[in-house]
């Protein structure tokens, strides 16, 4: 039952393999180049397992100790998970001990596979989803470990490498822009951040920006309201 599910799950994860090895490696390399210990990279990929947040965490770990700020910022950056969960309430029902791991390992890529793919006939649903989640996380952990090791072995000028995070978010921004007909949320997010950056300065603008963003978005009615009930 297990090998059958693994064999069915593997092909769906291959595109993620490439992406996670490369992005995971740049994360590990970046951590290493900023002087953050290998153990922190490993622990982060095992227990946080959220790419965007791990990139942001590099800066947070280099700054001063601000627990509340870190906690709220993480909630905000990862708030999208709330909606992944809502979309998968039905699919994950009745999967026993595998369910907590499926929820813990719910990243953007795994979500998109779980949403789009049903197990083939005769394959156990729980093991099928379990292996997709497990394989995806293994790729990410492996990538970040390889990146951190490369960072130790290859002494190169890494000045500017931190731009990989900016590049990542710019590309996600472009991809989302193309997928969405309503560009107001993207513009509101960037606009609120810019306004608060000008008002509060680069050290203290994120919390007010997040508050302002939710205030602006909560009453906004997206153009796609009619399609609202198909998650």
């Amino acid at each position: 039952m297990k090998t059958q599910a693994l064999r069915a799950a593997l092909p769906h994860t291959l595109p993620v393999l490439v992406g996670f090895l490369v992005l995971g490696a740049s994360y590990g390399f970046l951590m290493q180049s900023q002087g953050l210990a290998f153990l922190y990279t490993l622990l982060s990929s095992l227990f946080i397992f959220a790419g965007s947040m791990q990139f942001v965490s590099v800066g947070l770990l280099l700054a001063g100790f601000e627990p509340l700020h870190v906690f709220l910022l993480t909630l905000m950056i990862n708030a999208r998970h709330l909606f992944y969960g809502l979309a998968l309430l039905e699919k994950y029902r009745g999967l026993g001990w595998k369910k907590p791991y499926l929820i813990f390992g719910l990243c953007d890529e795994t979500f998109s596979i779980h949403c789009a793919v049903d197990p083939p006939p005769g394959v156990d649903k729980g093991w099928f989803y379990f292996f997709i989640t497990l394989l995806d996380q293994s790729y990410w952990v492996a990538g970040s470990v390889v990146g951190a090791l490369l960072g130790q072995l290859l002494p190169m000028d890494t000045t500017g490498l931190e731009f990989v995070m900016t590049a990542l978010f710019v590309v996600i921004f472009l991809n989302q822009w193309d997928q969405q007909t309503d560009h107001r949320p993207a513009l509101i997010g960037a606009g609120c951040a810019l306004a608060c950056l000008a008002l509060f300065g680069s050290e203290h603008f994120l919390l007010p920006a997040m508050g302002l963003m939710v205030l602006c978005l909560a009453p906004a009615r997206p153009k796609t309201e009619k399609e609202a009930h198909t998650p």
Partner: protein
Amino acid sequence: MTTAQTLITLGLIAAATALTRFLPFWVFPEGRQPPAWVARLGRVLPAAVIGMLVVYCLKDAPASAWHGLPELVAIGFIVLLHRWKKNTLLSIGGGTALYMLLVQTVLR
């Protein structure tokens, strides 16, 4: 940060991340439908947060030596490359390589 502070920070990030993943399953245990405003926020928040994160990444650029010129050039390159090839990893890799080249050579 001390080692303890670093581990606490990582623990908080892990806890807050897990919270965002587990909360829906706690709040809606047996297929209870989420209210409309939650679903609405769910559709708009991801795009807005990415917009915010782009600004966050660039927060220190205006005050740097070249006032954000290398960032501007690299982002312009990413947009063009992405419009042309539509390859996420190529765009990230190409943009980062160009930025590193700029800040290590001409725009030091």
